[in-house]
């Protein structure tokens, strides 16, 4: 049974028509001992075909350790979003519910190669001198 219903797919496909440049989803998963890895992978496998500008790469977290290190992925299920390059956007856990809406927004912003932030926010961020790591703790429901 697919996770995305036909009407969901239609709505998502329309939403993704706003994509400009390609975006790649990089999923880290494993077969065993990961509660929602399969669900995450299935969701991404259903999502990726809904735009020809969206692609998906799946890595085994335990085997493809160099890729996990490259992206700094330390837990799974993990989804890394790559636009023109890795901009540091990751989703840990199943990107379902509200998180699915966030995922689509992030895909669209990366695809436009534009954060969409207000000019004042851009100025403040341009003045940053040291790394800022944000972890936004959420619940998907």
């Amino acid at each position: 049974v697919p996770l995305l219903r036909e009407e969901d797919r239609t709505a998502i496909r329309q939403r993704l028509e706003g994509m400009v440049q390609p975006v790649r989803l990089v999923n880290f998963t494993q077969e065993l001992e990961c509660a929602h890895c399969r669900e995450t992978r299935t969701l991404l496998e259903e999502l990726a075909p809904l735009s020809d500008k969206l692609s998906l790469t799946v890595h085994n977290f335990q085997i493809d350790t160099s890729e996990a290190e490259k992206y700094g992925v330390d837990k799974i299920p993990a989804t890394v979003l790559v636009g023109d390059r890795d901009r540091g956007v990751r989703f840990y856990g199943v990107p379902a519910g509200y998180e699915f809406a966030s995922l689509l927004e992030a895909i669209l912003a990366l695809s436009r190669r534009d954060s969409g932030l207000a000019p004042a926010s851009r100025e403040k961020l341009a003045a940053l001198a040291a790394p800022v790591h944000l972890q936004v703790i959420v619940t998907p429901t």
Partner: protein
Amino acid sequence: MAIESDLVTADMVDAAEFPHLAVKYAVHGVPRTVVNEVAFVDGALPEAGYLDEVLKGAGLAAGG
């Protein structure tokens, strides 16, 4: 913010999937933003206010 700045990385973390992190960061309500492991911003704030809180948390507020 992560898309805008190369110095910013942003992880969306599902509290239900990673309960140890919810405990580690004393999450009682969501969204809770953890800034550089040490500071917290609670709630969904408008963009400008959220960015200011994040920068304050990082001890990096531009212009002081």
